[in-house]
């Protein structure tokens, strides 16, 4: 028989989850308020702050930049991360173990330090265009997610299926594309969306790599907050929450969200 949770403990958990979700509910409320200041509970309901978010060209532009940056950075990272994860899973004995540590370095080194170092050495030092540096920075930032999540998927894969295809005459590259890849599809999709949302929300790297004409949505939000304090920011925040919901739905359908609790 299942033991009952002590009521005090259950109440404690309820309060925790109210604390976790309350502020987000407040943002949704203020984004709908028909007032020029942030009001909660909302006074009158309107969607004009959402319209406003799209009317401000800086938001429109940075939404697009952030979106393309997240897609391209993640794609680049997966393109080099999948082979790396594959090599580590398939040829475990041939590769030294410290490689795994190298691939998680981007989460070990503080993001803000990485951003500063990229700005100093790559953008300024090598005169690399800001956008290119930003793209490389984001690809680096999400590399650990790509390698780890795809790696977790590969750990479940039975490589003897691939061997069978190869021994029957299938070229190795074709065996990878038609046998291995379809079997780790879930992991690749989950890696993509987790990396995408990480890149989309990034502040610490991007803050150093925004310049004339190049900025990302979170950085634009920070800048906007310092000048205006109207519900537009709340409405952009709500739009970002929709993206989060979409990401969660995709992860749930591929790996299952419990994958994140481990």
């Amino acid at each position, binding site marked *: 028989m299942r*033991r009952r*949770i002590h009521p005090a*403990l259950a109440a*404690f*958990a309820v309060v*925790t*989850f109210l*604390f*976790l979700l309350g*502020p*987000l509910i*407040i943002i949704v409320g*203020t984004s709908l308020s028909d007032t020029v*200041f*942030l009001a*909660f509970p909302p006074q009158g309901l309107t969607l004009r702050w959402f319209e406003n978010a799209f009317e401000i060209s800086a938001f429109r532009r940075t939404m697009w930049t952030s979106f393309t940056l997240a897609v391209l950075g993640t794609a680049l990272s997966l*393109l*080099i991360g999948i*082979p*790396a994860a*594959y*090599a*580590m899973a398939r*040829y475990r004995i041939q*590769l030294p173990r410290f490689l795994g540590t190298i*691939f998680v370095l*981007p989460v*070990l*080194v*503080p993001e*803000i*330090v990485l951003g*500063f*170092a990229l700005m*100093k*050495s*790559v953008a300024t030092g090598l005169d690399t265009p800001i956008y290119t540096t930003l793209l*490389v*920075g984001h*690809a*680096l930032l999400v*590399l650990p997610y790509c390698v780890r999540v795809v790696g977790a998927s590969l750990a479940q894969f039975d490589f003897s299926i691939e061997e069978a295809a190869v021994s029957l005459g299938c070229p190795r590259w074709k065996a990878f594309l038609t046998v291995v890849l379809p079997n780790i599809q879930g992991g690749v999709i989950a890696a993509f969306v987790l990396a995408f949302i990480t890149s989309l*929300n990034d*502040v*610490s790297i991007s*803050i*150093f790599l925004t310049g004339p004409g190049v900025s990302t949505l*979170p950085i634009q*939000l920070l800048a906007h*907050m310092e000048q205006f304090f109207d519900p537009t*920011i*709340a409405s952009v*925040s709500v739009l*970002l929450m929709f993206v*989060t919901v979409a990401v*969660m739905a995709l992860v749930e359908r591929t790996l299952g*969200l*419990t994958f*994140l*609790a481990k």
Partner: protein
Amino acid sequence: MTDRRLAWALAMPALLLVALFLGLPVLSTFGTTFTTDDGLFATYEAFFQSRFRRSVLWRTMEVATITTAISVAIGFPTAWVVARAPRTLKSLLIVAAVFPLLTGVVVRSFAWLVILGRNGILNGALERLGLIEEPLTMLYTQGAVIVAMVYLFVPLMILTLVGVLDAIPEDLTDAAASLGATPAATFRQVVLPMAVPGLIVGAVLVFTGSFTSYATPQLLGGERQMMMGTFLHQRAMVTFDWVGASTIAAIMVVVTLATVWGMSRLANRLNPVAG
């Protein structure tokens, strides 16, 4: 091609990305702190001799430590409830923890700006209840930074601990109880030792995360509650003191790596399985 060569060839692009765009830039950043005209450790001496800079480092340590402690205090009991909840409820609670985690740090910090502001929701509520006459100043205090950081990191702590607590079989706690252990004794002698690895991982994530955070101290602490992350940014982008900024960066990396290293050693010593 031999397997060995093929393996290296496949891993090479990712290795190069990390080596060229993380390894070299970070090492060259460290390099500039040792190559000033005043001597090898001059920039570090200057850092630790300045009362202001020391206070920033100290404040960052303090905020990160308090945030970690509160996150454990909130996260542990909550994770226990989540781990022991029936299936459907459990999935729902995990969703409720993942959602804030995947919502951006700017959005989550903004929420506290709205709540704690001078004309914010909390002040408004307190005034309406007649508890205060004048709005309280809550923004740009250490308390505001800590509250927002705890908010940022509690989901991470919960999710890390749920994974570990889930792995503790219910039979084990039942067995302890049937042998006469009080709930407190069961917790102390069975649950806690098995949860230690998760607690350490969670604590490392929260400590290093809050120690190196930028957006939250920037928005809720401002200039008055300067922390290492905001200080680094200010030195690099406002005063253009790149050597000073590099020194801050190096200190941040040392503290982060020392925390990870020290705690993983502690984890190895305390791990009942590896014991």
